[in-house]
């Protein structure tokens, strides 16, 4: 579960929107502007953190690329060592790319949420949070 999912889950829990609906009884309670403000503050902090993380990942990617070039030049006469070095660095690059993709996805969602939340009525914010949270596949959510 990503930090964004956790933030949305906490918001939905606190506002009673995470509970399974029942076939009757009173309607869900209204969400206050204060609760929305709290979510907005949290998401803004997460967006900043996510931005820093993506910068760090890109920096790591560049470093790995430089290491790859150095290894290619250094081991140009030793194909076995060169293959090993390329294998290790290649696997690291693949892992890093996956990380960058996940951070980028979360970053995009956070940027959109941070931008739209102040312009939406509280009930609409809850709908957006529900849609995002419940559209995550179950096996990734595990709550």
């Amino acid at each position, binding site marked *: 579960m990503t930090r964004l999912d956790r933030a949305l889950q906490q918001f939905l829990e606190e506002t009673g*929107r995470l509970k*399974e*609906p*029942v*076939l*009757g*009884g009173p*309607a*869900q309670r209204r969400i206050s502007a204060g609760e929305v403000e709290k979510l907005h503050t949290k998401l803004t902090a997460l967006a900043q953190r996510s931005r820093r993380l993506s910068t760090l990942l890109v920096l790591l990617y560049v470093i790995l690329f430089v290491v790859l070039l150095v290894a290619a030049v250094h081991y140009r006469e030793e194909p076995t060592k060169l293959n090993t070095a390329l294998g290790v660095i290649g696997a690291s690059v693949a892992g890093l790319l996956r990380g960058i993709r996940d951070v980028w996805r979360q970053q995009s969602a956070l940027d959109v949420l941070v931008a739209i939340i102040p312009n939406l009525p509280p*009930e609409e914010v*809850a*709908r957006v949070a*529900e*849609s995002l*949270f*419940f*559209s995550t596949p*179950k096996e990734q959510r595990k709550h």
Partner: protein
Amino acid sequence: MISQEIVRPSDCTLAVCLPTSRERFMKARADVENRDFVLHHCATWEKYNHYVMSHLSIVLPELIRMGVCVQLDVTHCDFSRLLSSARSRVIILFAHYVEGAAEFADGLHSDEAVTLAVPCEFDGLLDLCVCHPKLLVQRLRDERPRCLVKFTNRPARTSFWIHLYRVLFAILEGEAIAPGQRPTGGVPYLLALERAVAAMLPSRQSQEGLLE
């Protein structure tokens, strides 16, 4: 008498009044005047899909395989027709209930309208799978004394009830519900319901108010 009658799954109809597709859900949500469930209890398709549709899509095909007549997106007219056709001895109304009205696929209908949909000569069982329908039950018992009404006095979670019906129909079909248990043959609906509840909620305390 229906309370003692042996009932088979093919004698039962499950009338699902909740939306059963994204299109129906969106249509219901647009009808702000005459709706409650998708407006005030479950306003997004993603949540609805998670809590309701994912369970219905597992259980309904099984119920159909067992021979239950499953009717989807049941309107008030459909409900009335189902009761008048006398095809089923047991009708399960799987719907949302908000004080004084039940929500069908075509919107909210008052207790009076629901009662009028039940023919005076209907002597089967009406299983109301809705939350706290005490006023409706009172009216039905007063005005349709031949009909046996079962209801729950507890909040009805869709996932719990739909799975409970799966167990219930397995019992009615004569299947064992647990390893080592012998097939039951045929049983009356209310007895099967009690057994299904006991299988799903082993503690007595958790069963309180569930069946009335």
